[in-house]
């Protein structure tokens, strides 16, 4: 049983005033906080530095705990994998057969491609990474999916650079501090990646769902051409993510597109690379310095 509060200050003027002032401070502060929140939704860049600075404080502890425990690979993922094991097994077997067939087709295409490229002497765009690091930790109590990368400005990481793992795209750098930087994962609700289907180049947009999956929507509403098992890669449209980075695999069709699962699971990747943002200068000249201004991801039409 909690003791009742003695909120009433009695006859003392001083006590009455101090209680009144406390309420005034609280209400004005709350209103100011609400305005600040709206402001930082509209202009997230302005407050990114403040947040990165605070993450610099916890980063050493995250590094230490990571080296002791190792990375805890998504708890929720393990639970859902256990529940869906049977149907997953069936689906995977079907996918394996499909993939074998495609592999045969692809190997001949690859050879043809190599010969054509040799003929044209096409220059490969600069795909070398700026730096490599690993994901230390991430926000796990809010609906925002921001991961902490173990490298920062010390290795040339800056806002707007794409981040990928060995299996596929992870996200883009939101802000960088002296020794850590923040990565907005592709599964975040506010992250939109322009993709195309690897098979035939059908353009689409990948929207994060916030729960680890992606919503794929075509630019053409009339038909829904996706099939489970379709691989999606970045298209390079909009000029942030370089083309041909694997993004996701379609899991099932939906009314307005498809549900896809990212190929690179940020909870399981060990090392990630920070790439140069895909701009015309970067795509053409290999040794071009990274530009100062980085174009934002285009909004959905």
């Amino acid at each position, binding site marked *: 049983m909690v003791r009742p509060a003695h909120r009433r200050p009695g006859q003392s003027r001083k006590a009455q005033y101090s209680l009144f002032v406390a309420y005034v401070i609280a209400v004005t502060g709350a209103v100011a906080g609400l305005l600040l929140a709206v402001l930082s939704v509209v202009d997230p860049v302005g407050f990114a530095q403040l947040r990165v600075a605070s993450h610099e404080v916890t980063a050493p502890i995250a590094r230490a705990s990571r080296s002791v425990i190792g990375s805890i690979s998504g708890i929720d993922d393990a639970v859902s994998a256990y529940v869906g094991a049977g149907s997953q097994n069936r689906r995977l077997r079907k996918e394996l057969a499909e993939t074998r067939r495609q592999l045969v087709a692809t190997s001949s295409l690859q050879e043809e491609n190599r010969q054509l490229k040799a003929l044209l002497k096409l220059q490969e765009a600069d795909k070398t990474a700026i730096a490599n690091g690993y994901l230390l930790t991430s926000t796990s109590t809010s*609906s925002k999916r921001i991961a902490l990368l173990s490298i920062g400005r010390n290795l040339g990481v800056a806002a707007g650079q794409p981040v990928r793992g060995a299996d596929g795209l992870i996200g883009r750098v939101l802000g960088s501090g002296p020794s850590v930087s923040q990565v907005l994962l592709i599964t975040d609700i506010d992250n939109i990646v322009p993709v195309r289907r690897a098979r035939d180049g059908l353009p689409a947009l990948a929207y994060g769902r916030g729960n680890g999956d992606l919503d794929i929507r075509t630019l053409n509403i009339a038909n829904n051409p996706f099939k489970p098992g379709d691989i999606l890669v970045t298209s390079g449209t909009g000029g942030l993510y370089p083309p041909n980075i694997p993004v996701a695999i379609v899991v099932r069709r939906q009314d307005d597109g498809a549900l896809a699962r990212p190929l690179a699971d940020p909870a399981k990747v060990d090392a990630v690379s920070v790439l140069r943002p895909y701009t015309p200068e970067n795509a053409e000249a290999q040794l071009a310095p990274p530009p100062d201004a980085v174009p934002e991801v285009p909004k959905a039409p």
Partner: protein
Amino acid sequence: MNQRGPRLGEPASRWRMRIVPIASVMLASALPLMLPLVASSPVLPPLGLLFFLSWQLLRTEMWPVWIGLPLGLWDDLFSGAPIGTAVALWTAASIAIAYASQRIYWRGFFHDWAIGALLVAIIQAVAALLTHPHAATGRLLGLVAPQIVVSVLLVPLFLRLTGKFDNFRLKRR
């Protein structure tokens, strides 16, 4: 007489009385970013918020009603929500608890649980809506719903933990 030893009737250390509650909330807010966990959805309950509410339910008069401003700002730095969200929502929660403690004169365990659960649910839902103003409301609420359920079930545990911390806080030397 030995001056260094504990004296009869001596109150607890003033510093410890002040610091233990604030430190527990601040540490709980920053803890998720110290664990090597890369989450793909909001999996952890809002630890800082749960401690914040528990302290206020246990000791309504301990903090002034504006304590949500600094502690909320600290939580915003680590939670990933836009800065200012927790500042506003935590302060509103303080005012709500102060109001409830005037209306419900003798609060019991179930009152505390109900108030804490209601506030956690409202704060997490509103924070998600503030973070993603363009997303569909139903989907956002579906995203935070599992976290809210877990948090509501954890409220009694956090009340207990806060009680333990409170015993330590007021322990005489």
